[in-house]
């Protein structure tokens, strides 16, 4: 089965009102080219589940989002994500704000097709107090109360991988897969963008096969976009683009997100985008951050 598609073909599977999950973490390994394609579409009213960065911020700022399920939206070196911040402060979006680990359990529950996983995380905090959709239950085995963290089921997941074959085998060569495998398993339909398309034989090396974290049956669409995580990172191939994130932040801060979109997204191809940010070679030259 050949699952190779263009970004536009792949994103056409996303309909208004759907729940979408986005892999990566903050400014790291986000499927930003897919996000840009989604910004170009006429889809609205999305519920977005993510360890959020500019993916969430830009979708919010573009008016695509009805609700965000999040523990944070942050670019780390820029702690406050500009697009998300503006959307929240305008009261434009609903939220389900949960702990990072609760999100992990919600993804696991969805991937295992179970309704919830009990946790004490959230008890005593506004996570439970402000979100009546999170139920608190008794356990048949003790006398405590537990939050029943619900499955974060989703219609579509967007993920950026290092390398894929056309059948949907996906290698995450980065030191951390984050929760991407769980997004892939939790979604009915998973779209993976990747920096490189490789022949199946690439995975025969056991060390490479160990960096494949979900079976190909959980990947429905493969989109080949070298540099497609930009401005986020795709470790080990390139780091995130601090300058670009800052420019995006300044645009939003000045009320000029629309100008950013006009310059980078609206009516532009991914090639236009990459040309505007210095070209693929410039992206590949972005250094990996060291902490």
């Amino acid at each position, binding site marked *: 089965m050949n699952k190779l598609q263009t970004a536009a073909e792949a994103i056409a599977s996303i309909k208004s009102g759907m729940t979408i999950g986005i892999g990566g973490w903050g400014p790291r390994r986000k499927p930003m080219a897919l996000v840009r394609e989604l910004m170009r579409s006429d889809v609205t009213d999305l519920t977005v589940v993510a360890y959020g960065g500019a993916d969430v911020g830009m979708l919010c700022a573009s008016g695509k989002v009805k609700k965000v399920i999040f523990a944070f939206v*942050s670019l780390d070196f820029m702690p406050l994500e500009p697009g*998300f911040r503006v959307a929240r402060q305008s009261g434009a979006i609903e939220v389900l704000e949960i702990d990072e680990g609760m999100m992990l359990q919600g993804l696991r529950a969805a991937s295992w097709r179970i309704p919830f996983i009990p946790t004490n995380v959230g008890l005593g905090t*506004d996570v439970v107090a402000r979100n009546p959709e999170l139920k608190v239950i008794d356990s048949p085995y003790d006398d405590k109360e537990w939050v029943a963290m619900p499955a974060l089921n989703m219609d579509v997941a967007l993920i950026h991988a290092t390398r894929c074959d056309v059948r949907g085998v996906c290698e995450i060569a980065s030191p951390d897969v984050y929760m991407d495998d769980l997004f892939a398993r939790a979604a009915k339909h998973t779209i993976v963008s990747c920096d490189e398309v490789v022949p199946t034989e690439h995975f025969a090396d056991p060390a490479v096969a160990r960096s494949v974290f979900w079976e190909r049956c959980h990947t429905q669409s493969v989109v080949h976009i070298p540099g497609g995580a930009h401005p986020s990172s795709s470790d080990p191939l390139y780091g995130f683009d601090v300058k670009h994130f800052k420019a995006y932040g300044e645009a939003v801060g000045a009320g000029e997100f629309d100008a950013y979109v006009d310059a980078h997204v609206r009516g532009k191809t991914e090639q236009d985008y990459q040309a505007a940010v210095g070209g693929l070679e410039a992206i590949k030259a972005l250094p990996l951050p060291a902490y």
Partner: protein
Amino acid sequence: MSEVASSYSLAELMVVAASRVFDNEGEVLATGIGLLPRLAASLAMSTTNPDLMMTDSQSFLLSKPNPVSGMKSHAGQANETWLGFRAVFDNVWSGKRHAMVGPSQIDRFGQANISALGGTYQQPKVQLLGVRGFPGNSISHGNSFFVPKHSTRVFVEGECDVVGSIGYNPDRLPKGYSLDDIDVRTVITDLCVMDFNGPNHQMRIVSLHPGVTEQEVRDNTGFELAVVDNLGVTPAPTVEQLAIIAELDPMNARAKQLKDNPPGERRG
């Protein structure tokens, strides 16, 4: 014991005071969020508690802490165990961790907020990060706070605008829990060291930094504080501690963490 240093910055005093929270922790993951807390954890691991565990802030536990400044690459670091972000939660929920974080608000119950300020929950005046891992950290393991600027904006009069971490608030105590199940440890600020060992877990001044008065602390705190018997001065760093700090922070990034990098001794 190494001799006491004659001169040191306030940041260095705070780092040394903060490092003490890890002294008797045994084999736990020490997580300092922010440069000075991370330096504090690194100092403890390099001196009083070599059994501590620390990460590279990415995907690996290290057998030797990385420097907090001047890192060009993670290649060659002393990896010992893969600990990707999901594995951190395995650690958190095991309780084998002590985190030191810098909240935007802390209330009299030791509840903390990095989520949002003002307005309503639906439309906050200022959106911050979100609760991140605060709910899980606070109910799973020991937590300390690091506050670079002690003020009534941080130590708020009422409850936090968004309660992100569980504290000693009887009204929020979950079924089956007692207040003694909560473990908020030490608060390091630019004025003093505090804990929650006052009557009924009241926040309590443990030591004042050199030149700081008890009244100054009270004036900058939005609620009543208990005070330890025989209130003393926060111990100054030793020469050895300063040397290790300098080694762990070769680019002196610690000098840029507090406004104008004040000296540790504010007397005179």
